[in-house]
């Protein structure tokens, strides 16, 4: 039996729209993953602790409010601080190219633009996480 990929979908910051996050969560479930959805308005510190306790393989952050640089990088810092290792860190939202570079230098594996096909993201996750889990 293939091991399950566990994903945390979280929205750091204050913006209160989570339709996009919910669509992504559902798509990942349909791709066979176990998806933990936290609800809106979590601080980077909370997200890191939740990722640790839920022992997820992937943390996906979404932000539409433009605060991504600080918030996203804070999540990466807090993950290290609480001792959550081995996690694939992804971002989604409207992020300018120069910021994408900055985020990739700060722990993010990939940033997906709004409208990216959720299947593409799911396939990307599977290709990155399955080898780690020892699945074929």
């Amino acid at each position: 039996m293939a091991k399950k990929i566990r994903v945390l979908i979280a929205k750091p910051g204050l913006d209160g729209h989570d339709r996009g996050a919910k669509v992504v969560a559902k798509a990942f479930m349909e791709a066979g993953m176990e998806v933990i959805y936290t609800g809106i308005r979590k601080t980077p510190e909370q997200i890191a602790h939740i990722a640790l306790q839920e022992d997820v393989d992937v943390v996906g952050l979404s932000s539409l409010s433009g605060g991504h640089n600080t918030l996203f990088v804070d999540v990466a810092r807090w993950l290290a601080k609480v001792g959550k290792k081995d996690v694939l860190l992804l971002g989604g939202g409207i992020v300018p190219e120069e910021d994408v570079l900055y985020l990739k230098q700060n722990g993010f594996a990939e940033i997906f633009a709004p409208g990216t096909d959720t299947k593409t993201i799911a396939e990307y996750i599977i290709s990155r996480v399955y080898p780690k889990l020892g699945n074929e």
Partner: protein
Amino acid sequence: MEDIDQLLQKIRSQNMAAIAHAITLVENRDDGYLTLLDKLYNLPRHSFVVGITGAPGSGKSTFVNQLVPQALETQKKVAVIAIDPSSRFTGGALLGDRIRFSDAFPFDRVFFRSLASRSSLGAVSSALFSILQIFNGALFDCIFVESVGAGQNDLDIKDYVDMVLLFLVSGMGDEVQCMKAGIMEIADLFVINKIDLYPPAPLFLALLNHLSLHLSSETAQSRIVQTDALHNTGFTELWHTIENFRQTCRYQKRSLEKDTALLLKNEVERLFTEKHIQKKLQELLSLGTSPYQMVEKMQKLLEEMLGDPHD
């Protein structure tokens, strides 16, 4: 294979990352999981485990969120295990119970783990028993288990916990529902929730009538509580009721026979999803013409293996 003794040490010293990792190890049956569980099983009982069941939407998650701060007043460490169903088609799961959970609890005292039921054969994850051993080993004082809340399968939870809370909402047909065989018997405490929305009296009376068949009316009354989980009404009293139960009813006794039977049952159920049993079923398909004939053949095979039960 990782160092299981080291992992055990870390669990004992309440290292949150180690506890989280051990749960995954057990869920995935990774190398060494049985060694770990073997060591954990023999530790003395510490945790008091409360199971929470009831129909989806009856307010179980909201309720746990209110109960945790009450528990934290007297308990050092509290764990919450929230189980949601896995999709039978994709094997995936959407684990959303955290949405109702407050951000304000201290992460070093409250451990929340979302669990997918995975096996399609029961509402309680087959790993639950083992995960409880991990929290017990980490000296968590109180553990709340929120089950999927889907029908008859939910009766299973009784086998895993010290106390069962059954969630009901008045006026939702629960008056009839709760009289059904089984569910009444497993509940230690009946929680009538959403009293702000639905007058609880009809359900309360129906429950009281039913319970009074076996209990004195005073005892029967003490087994029913009424809450409004959304506005935090009735929780101080409720926590006292739980504490009292813990004092008087002690922990469920550990029984080697019972625990082994429980684990074996899970194991056998799980095997049916595995490849070699599927292969055996394919073989049997060529031998019989109806499912009954094939079941008979399967029974014969098992009896040959295990011997006559009447010997």
